């Protein structure tokens, strides 16, 4: 599903060049649930930006579902983002003046789907995350865990090939974090490929594979025994 070969990325910081990613190689197969771990500055967010087509690598290859992602124009990038990827953010990033339902329906708007169908699909995914009763509520009326579940529903709405989660539990307490991870595990069980960036070991242990990043290189990449949320609680 994702193939990365010799990926390099550096940033210009003042007069210095900061080499963030120093030749990464790894593959993700369909249906995997991978966590990318590392302390801050390890380059994990940069990697996620590149995977999410929000940023471009200096050199190296990135192939997503058979499509080489290189020098895309804005139009194609937007289309790929919409169709291939679903994003879940640490700070939820729901649009605060839109109801939960409208937030979930937004990626469908950019797919050019008609309003009626959008609402139906959005309702389906809200149901899936267990928040159908909260459909008409604004984000400010929801708890952190509920917001993240709405965000997950939104990420799923466009039926992407890969779900990218950037510290999805970073702003949540541990009980809620586990609920969110349980949801992600369930989605993964249905076959969706998920990448989670985190720095929490217990969260990482709930995935099937942990990639450790340090100073821009992969120090370890191992399949782990997935801890099911229900067992750990």
């Amino acid at each position: 599903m994702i193939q990365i070969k010799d990926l390099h990325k550096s940033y210009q910081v003042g007069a210095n060049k900061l080499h963030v990613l120093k030749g990464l190689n790894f593959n993700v197969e369909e249906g995997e649930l991978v966590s990318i771990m590392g302390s801050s500055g390890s380059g994990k967010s940069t990697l996620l930006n590149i995977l999410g087509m929000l940023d471009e690598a200096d050199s190296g290859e990135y192939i997503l579902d058979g499509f080489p992602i290189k020098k895309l124009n804005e139009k194609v990038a937007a289309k790929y983002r919409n169709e291939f990827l679903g994003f879940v953010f640490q700070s939820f990033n729901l649009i605060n003046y839109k109801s939960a339902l409208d937030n979930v329906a937004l990626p469908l708007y950019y797919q050019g789907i008609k309003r009626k169908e959008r609402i139906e699909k959005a309702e389906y995914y809200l149901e899936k995350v267990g928040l159908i009763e909260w459909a008409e509520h604004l984000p400010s009326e929801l708890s952190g865990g509920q917001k993240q579940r709405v965000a997950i529903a939104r990420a799923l709405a466009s039926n992407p090939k890969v779900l990218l989660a950037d510290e999805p539990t970073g702003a949540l307490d541990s009980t809620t974090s586990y609920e969110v991870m349980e949801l992600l595990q369930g989605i993964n069980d249905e076959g969706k490929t998920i990448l989670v960036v985190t720095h929490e070991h217990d969260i990482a242990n709930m995935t099937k594979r942990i990639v450790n990043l340090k100073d821009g290189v992969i120090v370890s990449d191992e399949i782990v025994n997935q801890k099911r949320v229900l067992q750990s609680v």
Partner: protein
Amino acid sequence: MFDIERWQEIFDTLKKNKLRTFLTGLSVASGIFILVILLGFSKGIENGVKSEFQRDATNCITIWTGVTSKEYKGNNPGRYIQLKNDDYNLISQKYSDYIEYKAPLYQRWGSTVTYKNETGNYNVRGAVPDYQFIENADISNGRFLNQSDIDEFKKVVVIGNNVRKDLFKDEDPIDKNVLIFGINFKVVGVFYDPGGWEENIAYIPITTAQRVFNAGDNLRNMLFTIKMSDNFSESVILSNNIARGIESDLKLMHSVAPDDTSAVRVNNTLEEAAKIYALIDTIAAVFWFVGIGTIIAGIVGVGNIMLIIVKERTKEIGVRKALGALPSSIIGMILQEAIFVTMFAGLFGLIAGLGLLELIGPQIQNDYLKYPQVNFNVALTTVFLLVFAGSLAGFIPAFRAVKIKPIDALRDE
């Protein structure tokens, strides 16, 4: 541009951000509203002052005489200078190329005019046909004096509307005889004065007046209007030169000291008119200045609001981008929203301003403020200018915002 889904999205956004929408709209609408009112009143003042001035020709040179105040060429001061027909003929001959209308005048204040049992004292003026145009007398009934009245010393009279009201009440005065100094005159016309000030007057032929008042060939006044060229300031200069020329000619003919200001007097209304027009122009300029200032303030206000809106929506833009929105669709959405709000509010302000002028315009009873009105095209242009400026002010930050990488926009806490 017309995409129903896009509009739904925009209306959604506007509806859910009522305060923001309202404030943007308010600043645009009030700017346009104030401009319309200002321009309307500026026009109203112009109309008012112009109509005040309408009562007489604005390009009129009037000459009258008095007693000399200085000794000159062996003549003692205190000598009365009497204008004669010859003076009038000489002057009109000399300046005939520049003169439009000309009139000699012989008048008596407080002349008794009688019709049946009604009697009143009026200013009886001996005049000529041209005088109608100099005084801007509107004939409501009958006719003004004509050349045959002058040539044949006819005993006819044209009376002012006030004279008609006093003497004839509701009766039709035409072809009735009135007594002036005990002599029968036939009423041939009634006139209104657009300024309304000079209706206590009766005009008789100048030749008849000189006979009736035993005046020989004496005149009291001479009036000339100067042909106007397209260039107003040139006309002012020309008429000033003519006025000065006439003054020195008359002083020469009557042996009056050139610096004697009381014996021969020349008044040039065009000079006065030039001052009034300059004043109107100044007032209009001030209103425009204030109006444009208001519009600039409005533009800055709209621009400011757009900046804040885009700033506030940076995160939302990042989210939309991450969800697969094209940069162009985001800019398009923000612009369309801005144009819709400013256009709607601008037209609202325009209609409110025009409505107010329509409503209170006719109620205004003031000599110097009449029929306030606005050039619709000017007002509409300003609305579009404001819309354009508002969109531009929205476009720049929106363009910058979509250039920010979504992750940066979203990370920014």
